Structures are given as C-alpha cells and as structure tokens.
C-alpha cells in the first residue's frame, strides 16, 4: 500500500539534467547466452577475501562453492556455471588496479550442483539458520557497497532496530536494473524483505522509491499488502538512495557523523540484495548472477541483463548489440559514483550495477583550476560538508585539517565534482585523504 508518510527533503543534492533512464528502462529483461569462459574476481566483498578451495583442472558444478568465507566479515564465492577451473589470473579491478581472479571454463551443460537446502517454510525457520544461509549464499550489498549482508543483519543487541528500509530509490542516472527487477519480480523483493525483517525481529518495512518509476510503484503496491510493507514515493533527487539521505527522507531521523543507520534504529537493504536473499532462502540458490544495466547512447541495444558474475565487460557490451558510434568513456557503475575504465577485461562482480558508455560529446574534459570559493559544492553536498575548505586543505595535503572537517563522512557521491565550475577533482582528493587518514590511524 502507498504510505501516508510525507517524505522529508534532505538538504543538498542535485537533479542531474540528463537522467538517461529512458534508454534502458522499458526494454524487457534479457538473459544472454552462456559464455565459454568466465573470469571471476576472487575478492568481491568488503572484509576478508574468501579462500580458494579449488585448483586448476577441477570439475565444478554451477553454484558450487569455490572459495570459502574467511571470518565473519567475509562471504564465500560460487561457480557461475558448470565446467572446469582454469588458470589463476590477474585482471583489472573496477579502479584499474590488478586483482586476482580465477577462470571457469564452461562445459555448456550449465548444470546445478548439489544445492543448499531450500527453506520454503522460512517463516518457521530459525533466525540464525536464515542468517547463516545468507552468508553461505555469498550475499553482499548489491547496491554498490558489497558489505556482507548477514553482518548488516546482525546488529549488536544494544541497538534497537525498528524499521527495515528497502532501498529502491535507484537515484543514479542511467541505471534501471532495480526498476526492472521491481517491475518483474516485486514479490521476490518483498519476500526477501520479509525474511530480513524476520531476522531483525521487526515488522515495519518501508520501501523508498523515486517517483519517476510509476510502473515499479504499481507492481509493488499490488503485492505489498501481503507483506504489510509501506511504499513511499520520493522526490527525484540525487543521492536519494544514499543510506543516510533515505533514512532521513523516510523517518526524519538523522545519523550523526561517523554513525551507522542502526544507531537510529534502521537497517537499509538494496532491492537486488533482497531478491538474492529470497532466492537463497526459498530456492537454495547462491549468488552467481545479477541484474546489470548495460546502457549508453553509443550502444545498439541498451537494456537490462541477467549477467553471471565473472562476465567480462567487453562481452556485456556485445550482448547489448555492440557499439554503433564513437565512444568517449566506459564507466563501471553509474555516471556519478562509477569508475571510468581502461580495459574491457574488467569483470562483472557482485556490486556491479551498471556498465555505461558515453559518447565523446557527453564527456567533459577539463583541467582542474584553483578553487573559486563559489560555494556551489557546499550548497549541494548532501552530507553538509564544507567542501570548498576540504578541497583546499586536501590540495595542500593537510589531512589533519581534512579529518577535523569531517572528510571521513564524505560518501563519495560525486556531486561536488559534478557542480564545480573549476573542474576540481574533489572526490579523488577526498578518497586520497581518507586513505591517508586510515593509514595514519593504523600506524598509531
């Protein structure tokens, strides 16, 4: 049901001129043919990398665990299809730095191995068992963070959680995978939400969704009654899907700097993650594929695809019909938070939400100039940071001052770089500052 909540407007944020969603939103979901070879990056989660338990030449079945979780903040990895294990290789990661990966040579049969035991009657299944299942299935935050989901669903006992927020905002321009997922399988997403709510021992489920997705809202309302979930249509404003922004919009609660959503009684889960939870629990399927928006004006047929983990980006572009015109930039993720790419070998992983191609005329090339102190970044920063000051102190490598000015709260939304008339690479400044500050803290 549509909620009566009147969503609050978070401070800052922008409305990108070109939403680009029309390119892919109305295309039906496509399942591309099986590839001969998948190159699976091994470390796809935040926390400890899983430990490989197979070696070259081993036969694996689809969904078979090939790397085991190493600790609590870690998840296992599963074979995306049946076949043979190939070489251990290195491929570029999303930021261009080489990461270890393993090749899976597909045998074409695409046969499931011995699956995890499904829990169709999850309502009467033990909470700990459900939580364990979520880890076994290798599920992480699929909106981009890749934080292990079972850990997010294990708040310490002193934190009282009362609301599960379903993040369906999908505020990044161009991306429509969540929209597509809701239109096609709203029930699956809400089942996942109900499972998560059961684990958290709560009943209040709020779905935050931007009001530019009327079909998805309709699909959700059609089934929401069954799950007593409230749908809250939100204004279109980037970054409406930022955890802290979403919590404020829906509940009016504010998370203090350095705090977590659970401090204000909320847990936020992305719709893709919830769908994966539903599959893992009701069908016993581990996370081996995800919805990815492959889009951009130079593509012949942009759309949303079910891509196996380990699909090279170059292949994904072929599935979308290949390119028809000159390309200015290839981005993994959305245009605001995604990473520009220098190689077609980078592979789809658990947190790849989109693959975007921009034409040369859509890419702005510039040389960074000195800060004009115009204040546009300060106005637009959704975290209310003094961005212009931060930008200048980071330029002078005064990371101590950056820390005092809350650089650690920056969510790297990219707005301050987007609005800056001087073309200053603010986000990159802040990423470096965070890395330096973290390194210093570790030393202490």
């Amino acid at each position, binding site marked *: 049901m549509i909620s009566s909540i009147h969503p609050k407007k978070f401070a800052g944020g922008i409305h990108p001129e070109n939403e680009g969603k029309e390119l892919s939103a109305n295309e039906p979901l496509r399942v591309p043919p099986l590839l001969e070879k998948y190159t699976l990056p091994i470390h796809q989660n935040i926390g400890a990398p899983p430990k490989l338990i197979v070696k070259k030449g081993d036969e694996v079945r689809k969904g078979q665990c090939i790397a085991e979780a190493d600790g609590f903040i870690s998840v296992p990895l599963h074979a995306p299809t049946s076949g043979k294990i190939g070489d251990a290789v290195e491929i570029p990661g999303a930021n261009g730095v080489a990461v270890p990966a393993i090749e899976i040579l597909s045998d074409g049969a695409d046969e499931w191995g011995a699956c995890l035991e499904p829990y169709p009657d999850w309502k009467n299944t033990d909470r700990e068992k459900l939580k364990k299942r979520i880890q076994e299935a290798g599920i992480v935050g699929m909106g981009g963070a890749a934080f292990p989901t079972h850990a997010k669903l294990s708040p310490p006992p002193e934190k009282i959680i009362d609301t599960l927020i379903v993040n369906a905002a999908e505020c990044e321009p161009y991306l429509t995978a969540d929209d597509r997922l809701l239109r096609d399988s709203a029930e699956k997403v809400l089942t996942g939400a109900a499972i998560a709510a059961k684990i958290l021992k709560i009943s209040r489920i709020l779905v935050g969704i931007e009001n530019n997705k009327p079909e998805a809202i309709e699909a959700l309302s059609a089934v929401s009654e069954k799950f007593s979930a409230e749908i809250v249509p939100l204004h279109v404003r980037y970054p409406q899907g930022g955890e802290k922004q979403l919590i404020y919009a829906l509940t009016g609660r504010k998370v203090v700097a350095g705090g977590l959503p659970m401090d204000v009684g909320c847990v936020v889960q992305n719709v893709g993650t919830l769908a994966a939870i539903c599959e893992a629990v009701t069908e016993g399927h581990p996370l081996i594929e995800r919805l990815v928006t492959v889009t951009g004006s130079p593509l012949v047929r942009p759309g949303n695809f079910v891509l196996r983990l380990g699909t090279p980006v170059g292949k994904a572009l072929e599935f979308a019909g290949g390119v028809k015109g000159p390309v200015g930039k290839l981005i993994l993720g959305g245009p605001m938070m995604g990473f520009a790419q220098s190689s077609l070998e980078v592979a789809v992983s658990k947190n790849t939400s989109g693959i975007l191609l921009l034409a040369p005329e859509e890419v702005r090339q510039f040389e960074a100039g000195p800060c004009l102190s115009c204040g546009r970044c300060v106005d637009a920063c959704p975290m209310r940071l003094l961005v212009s000051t931060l930008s200048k102190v980071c330029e002078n490598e005064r990371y101590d001052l950056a820390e005092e000015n809350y650089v650690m709260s920056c969510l790297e939304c990219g707005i301050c770089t987007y609005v800056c008339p001087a073309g200053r690479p603010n986000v990159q400044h802040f*990423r470096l500052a965070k*890395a*330096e500050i973290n390194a210093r803290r570790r030393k202490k």
Partner: protein
Amino acid sequence: MESVLVAVGVVALVGLILGVLIGFTAKKFAVASDPRIEQVAELLPGANCGGCGYAGCADLAKAIVTSGADPALCAVCSAENVAKICAVMGVEAGTKERKVAVVYCSGDRSHAKMIAQYNGLNDCRAAASLHGGGKGCRFGCIGLGSCARSCPFGAIEIRNGLAIVHPETCVGCGKCVDICPRKLIRLVPAESKGHVYCNSLLKGPQKKKYCSIPCIACRKCVKAAPEVFNPQGFLVRAVKPELVDAELVKSAGCPTGALQTVEDHLALGQAAGKEKEGAA
C-alpha cells in the same frame, strides 16, 4: 615643561625597576640547558626534513646530546660536520656511507605506453589507485611527481613523464622512498655507476606490451658479470651497482637498454624534454 620631565622620570624609573626584576628572575629561574645542544644544532643542516625520524634538526640535536642518538642518523649532514658533532660530544666518529635515491624505471613517455587518458588529481598516490594514471605498466613510474614534491632538496626532476633523481643533489634522506606508491625508489650507495632501470615483475613479453625499455630477464648481463647482477624472477637487479661502469654496460649488451649507466640515465629523454619546452 615640568610635567614632561616628571613623566619621563616616572617612565625611566618604572623601566629600571622592571629591568632589575627581569634580570633577577632570569637568573633565579633559569632553565639549565646544555650549551652543546645549540652547538650541535648549528652543525646540523637545518633543513628539517625529518628523514632522521625526529621532528626536525633541533629535535635531533637534543636527542644527540641528551639520549646519545647517532649523529650519522642525519643523512644530509656532511661527513665533516658529523665529525665536528662527534668532537663536540667527545665520541668516536664512525665512517658514514653516503646514499642516494634511484628510481628503478626508464619508462618515460617515449618508451612506455599509456592505456588511458588520465585527467585526475596530480598526485601519484591518487593515480596509483585509479588505473595507475593511465600508464600501461603497473610497476613503473607514474610520473606525477609526488616524490619530487616531497623532496626537501629538489633533487628529483620529472622529465617526460619519468622521475629522475640527480645524485649530486640527493642527500639520501629517504622521503621519496616513503611516498612513492609504486615503491620503485631505493637508496643505493652514492658511488653507484649504473643500474637496471626497471621494476616490473611481469614476464618479458607482457612487459614488452606496454614498454620498449624493460628488463626482459634475458640474463645477458648476468652472463657478462655474474657477481654484479642478480636475477630475481623476471627482473634483474645490479647488486653491486658501483661496478656497473660504461664498459660493463657496453659488454653486457642489454637488448632493450634497461641497463644504463647513471650518466646515460640522466641524459634520458633530454632531447625529447628540450623539444617539448621549445614547442611550449
């Protein structure tokens, strides 16, 4: 007129009393400080580079005098001054080996291939986690000059997209070694005459994909002088760089040119660099 004299008198008297008071307190509450600290501080270079691990030259001076820190900790200090400090402290001066930094890469813009156009922050540390600044070789010098900016003595030049250390200016303080995200700067004996200027651990053909001057581990140099060169996987290092003179470089016949004398390396890209400047 008289009031002026009174005023002058009063001020003079107040001044006198305060002067005596200050003189007295200064004597009475004086903090005894070792005069040697000042002497030592004067002999230290005063660059405050922090290479010794102390907060600055004054801090090191204090440590030398009060806790017996080794004067040779200061990499910058000339041997002569170290001897003088030792004389002040009344200790035996050890012999000090002068070190200089070297950047193990020759992949400047005319030799190394770029795979992307990098338009971000002008800082190697930031670029290292963003496609290596667009450089194909992920072991080589990014060339955005973080080391050059960190060097308190201006000993590093960025020429044609490659950091080159001028050994005559370098004092071996090690600041650049710490900052380089690619970890390709090392301190070597100042008498070094030549090196294998490459840092890539990949196999030969993979290196050649992105660079025309890599060490391909053909081991010609090792055969020519086994005691000087040491192969480490797919990379050869000159372990006795002081023996790598022009003659040895010539007789080794490095097929790519990764093995160079320090002089030749300093001249690398000189022409290309000049051209650029001329055009600009």
